[in-house]
């Protein structure tokens, strides 16, 4: 335990290694815990000053739909957190065009500015990462 703390202390003095992290979101919100858990990990990694980007594909694009009101379900509406990501320097949000089209979702229905990319472009972005974590 002491050793671990020492190591963390040393790292703080040394110039930090910045890696490219991509979080891939493929699940709809609320039906499962994946979307919320993914968001928590994004915030943690942002706190470690990493180069974080978020990808939304498949049902993951539903996470960003505007107008979520969870009062009736009595669960936390975590959609405003996507808007707060900018404050943590998480500004790279990529949404796959094919996933939006397959669901009849338009870009103006999304609650935060994003970069809409094709599946091929998304694959390229994935190739550029040091670490990819899927939710």
């Amino acid at each position, binding site marked *: 335990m002491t050793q671990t703390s020492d190591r963390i202390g040393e790292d703080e003095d040394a110039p930090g290694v910045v890696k490219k992290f991509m979080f891939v979101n493929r699940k*709809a919100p609320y039906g499962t815990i994946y979307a919320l858990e993914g968001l928590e990990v994004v915030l943690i990694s942002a706190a470690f000053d990493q180069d974080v980007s978020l990808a939304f594909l498949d*049902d993951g694009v539903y996470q960003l739909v505007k107008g979520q009101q969870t009062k*009736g*379900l009595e669960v936390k509406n975590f959609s405003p957190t996507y808007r707060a990501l900018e404050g943590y320097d998480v500004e790279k949000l990529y949404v796959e065009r094919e996933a939006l089209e397959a*669901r009849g979702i338009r870009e103006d229905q999304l609650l935060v500015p994003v970069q809409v990319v094709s599946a091929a472009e998304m694959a390229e972005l994935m190739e550029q990462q040091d670490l990819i974590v899927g939710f």
Partner: protein
Amino acid sequence: MLHIVNKSPYERNSLTSCLAHAGKGGALILIEDAVYAATRGNVAESAIRRALGDLPVYALGPDLEARGMQGSVIDGVKVVDFGGFVELVAEHRTNQSWL
């Protein structure tokens, strides 16, 4: 028979399987991630429109609202609250959850 589906049509084939077995006189309610199937432009839209010719289709309002999809419901799908869901369960002799 009340058929209950709770999975996104992109995630599982529960809805397809349910609709292949749901007969006339029954009813279908879409809850949780299955409410996406009740929205315009989704992959199950044509299947839902066909099903509406045979049986009433309901979607749970609080689940639509939580997902911001309350404005996109396919015409003919009836939105019910939790009380309405309970009434549907009580009205039908049996129910089946397609997990």
